[in-house]
């Protein structure tokens, strides 16, 4: 069980900061704020009251405001009728999801701060009951990306929808693996769904929208990604899932924010993949574990936490194609952190002379386990015989 007091965010959520800065006093009732809301937004009163009232009108208004229409114009007689906006959304194959919709995911447990509406494309949003979020940084080492992929594959096979943020790095690895495994994956974007970000994953988003998953976000079409979008986005990832698995998190990273958001929710579970103390990509994970998050040694640990039985297929994974030579195995062990190591330093770590080391690296390269770059060598995949654990 997680000690929620300790998982509670140490930093203040962005909206609280914004509220503190706000000069004028607001009614005390909790209002859903549009995602682009800031103290500088003109016509706050109009926006906030629109956002608070639920129904068709506010999202039409919100959409137009995001398109740059002045708030005053919205109240004129020639304001577009909701049907026109509806047509535009259907042209883009984007659904508007609000608390009245059937696929509204936050009926039981709204995110904090609350979310007024969602835009979605692709398959209907999965129920949150079995969904697992897999999160990690864009800069994650290839090895941790491989871990994210292996976890997603196993969890998808067990029937868990995989939620992530659609970014490069860990997010993309989790989405890709789920799509490959035939599971349902959900990408929560920080921009309009018709201008998805990052561009590198556009092909992935297209596959998801074409039926492999769901792309979702609280920003209307045309909304460009802004740095301020992504922290609020993370609370949706936490709210869309029953458990958040942190595969990679540096200190003060976005993944950590997602985990804290999940920990702050009543029923959210936080899990983390540990790492060596000197592995920068594990610093956040290790901190979470110290604060009470569940330590993940493999997919089985996640399934056990969810109370889901392990599918047959997982236990009987195909064995390694060919065993590694002792020198190669030793080299791979020295690269276990997933960080880049120079051959000369690897030579010192393994005790292999340069010739033998070069042969070992080539063997691992051919096996697809390591990758050479101008800076050195690093592990990029999990060795086949360790797959059973994942």
């Amino acid at each position: 069980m997680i000690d929620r007091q300790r998982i509670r965010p140490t930093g203040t959520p962005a909206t609280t900061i914004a509220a503190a800065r706000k000069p004028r006093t607001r009614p005390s009732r909790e209002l859903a704020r549009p995602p682009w809301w800031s103290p500088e937004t003109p016509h706050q009163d109009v926006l906030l009251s629109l956002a608070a009232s639920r129904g068709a009108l506010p999202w039409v208004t919100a959409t137009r405001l995001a398109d740059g229409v002045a708030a005053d114009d919205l109240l004129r007689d020639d304001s577009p009728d909701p049907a026109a906006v509806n047509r535009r959304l259907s042209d883009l194959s984007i659904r508007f999801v609000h608390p009245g919709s059937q696929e509204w995911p936050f009926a039981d447990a709204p995110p904090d701060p609350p979310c007024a509406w969602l835009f979605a494309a692709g398959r209907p949003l999965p129920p949150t009951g079995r969904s697992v979020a897999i999160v990690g940084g864009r800069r994650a080492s290839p090895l941790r990306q491989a871990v994210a992929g292996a976890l997603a594959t196993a969890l998808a096979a067990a029937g868990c929808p995989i939620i992530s943020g659609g970014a490069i790095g860990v997010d993309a690895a989790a989405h890709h693996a789920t799509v490959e495994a035939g599971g349902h994956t959900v990408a929560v974007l920080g921009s309009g769904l018709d201008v998805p970000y990052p561009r590198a994953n556009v092909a992935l988003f297209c596959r998801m929208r074409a039926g492999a998953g769901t792309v979702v976000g609280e920003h209307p079409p045309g909304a460009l990604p802004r740095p301020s979008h992504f922290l609020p986005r993370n609370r949706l990832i936490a709210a869309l899932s029953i458990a958040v698995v942190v595969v990679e998190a540096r200190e003060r990273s976005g993944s950590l924010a997602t985990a804290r958001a999940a920990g702050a929710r009543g029923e959210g579970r936080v899990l983390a993949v540990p790492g060596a103390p000197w592995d920068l990509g594990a610093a956040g994970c290790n901190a979470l574990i110290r604060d009470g998050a569940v330590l993940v040694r493999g997919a089985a640990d996640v399934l056990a936490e969810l109370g889901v039985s392990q599918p047959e297929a997982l236990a009987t994974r195909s064995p390694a194609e060919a065993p590694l030579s002792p020198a190669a195995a030793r080299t791979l062990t020295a690269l276990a952190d997933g960080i880049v190591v120079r051959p000369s330093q690897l030579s010192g770590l393994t005790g292999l002379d340069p010739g033998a080391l070069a042969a070992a690296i080539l063997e691992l390269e051919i096996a697809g386990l390591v990758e050479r770059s101008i800076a050195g060598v690093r592990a990029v995949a999990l060795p086949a015989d360790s797959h059973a654990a994942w």
Partner: protein
Amino acid sequence: MLARLDTAALVGLVAHPVGVEVDIGRGLPAITVVGLGDTAVLQARDRIRAAFGNAGFDWPDRRITVSLPPSDLPKHGSGFDLPIAIGLLAAAGHAPQTALDGLWALGELGLDGSVRGVRGVLSTVLAARAAGARLLVVPSANLGEAALVPDVPVAGARTLRQVGAWLRGQEELDPPAPPAESAPPAVEDLADVRGQAAARRALEVAAAGGHNLLMVGPPGAGKTMLARRLPGILPDLAQDEALEVTQVHSAAGLLTPAMPLVRTRPFRAPHHTVSVAGLVGGGSGIPRPGEVALAHHGVLFLDELAEFPRVALEALRQPLEDGHVTVVRSVAAVRFPARFALVGAANPCPCGYAGDLVRACRCGPEERRRYERKLSGPLLDRVDIFVEVERVGADALGASTAAEPSDAVRARVIAARDRQALRGVLNARLPTSDLAGRCQADGAARRILGIATERLGLTARAYHRALRVARTIADLAGDDTLMADHIEEALGLRYAEAHGRRATAAS
């Protein structure tokens, strides 16, 4: 009175014969020089006039016309001073015209009447030989260089007074001294390098096969030190190679009287702020040789490869492919020889500490990717060997056991090059069409090559490059057939563009 003799104008490396015609006629005292001379040529008038006076000759106070046919060939430099002065001496009656028949001359005059050295003498001597000159008078400072070419009588002049006396048969010019057998300057030895087993090996393979090399390592690891030792493990310059190198250095004015013949392989290390003209040749007027030409038959070392401007690196493509470079300017198109071994050095990342377990790298992944992208591309397509240069620890630096000296390595390199000589071409320049025939591999080697090509996603170019390097490794080992070990080592020396491969694998 009219006098006539010969000299030459340097265009690139080639000296073109130029006549010098001096006429003293009636008219107001004046001197004009016609025939497309540049400022230095036109200023010869003032130098000659002063030199005449200080050498004790009377200046003819009449109308003097100097023509330098062919008149449409641009001429530059100060080497026309001496031939014009000799023509003037003859035209003024200080010497008979017969003394000028078949005479070639070249040299700059000082105001005191001294004869100063000029650049491009070697090319002029070659032109004089081709024209069947009776005698070539050069500045005494250039005598050693001029005497390198057999079958051309040369003589050295120190002062204009001496030349005047010689024309009248009263004095002798300086005879060419027998070529001084001075020891070539000491080159840096590999015995001074501690550790660096991998880099030493890569250097040896690069030297043996004529491969281009990229060294990567943290700042201060010794990349420059290693590169400087590459000329020392290459075979000595053959006589004709030495002449080619000397000709380029002569045209650039880099020869010294003490070392008229360049006998050591050049090592050129231009700074990364070098201009394109400085790198491949150019400059105002007739192009001068650039760094690639000066590195001919030697080593061109580009430290901080990623800092070189893109245009400069692009300009290296022609010399790397063809072994020569053509510089086109409005006045002339000039071709310089430029067959060199390229050695590049780079930090592993912008801060230099990527992959270091001791010092943390401060670069972000995007920054590193940008850096790698900058390095890769057209130039790395021509780099066959990639090697890490490690930072050597204090214990290894203090070790008293000397490492293997350059001589021992050079012996192996020469043996490997002799094997290649039987095939007629260095491995680095083996044409793709010949590769299959020249690189017979045994079964195990073929299997490894097949697996590696598929699993490592080698491009056709990378595959051929690995074969060429493996061929060199086999030559070093004295094997005719490529074996698995050779292929494996060659694959370990290749440049792996990791990020590019991953990106395609992920999408």
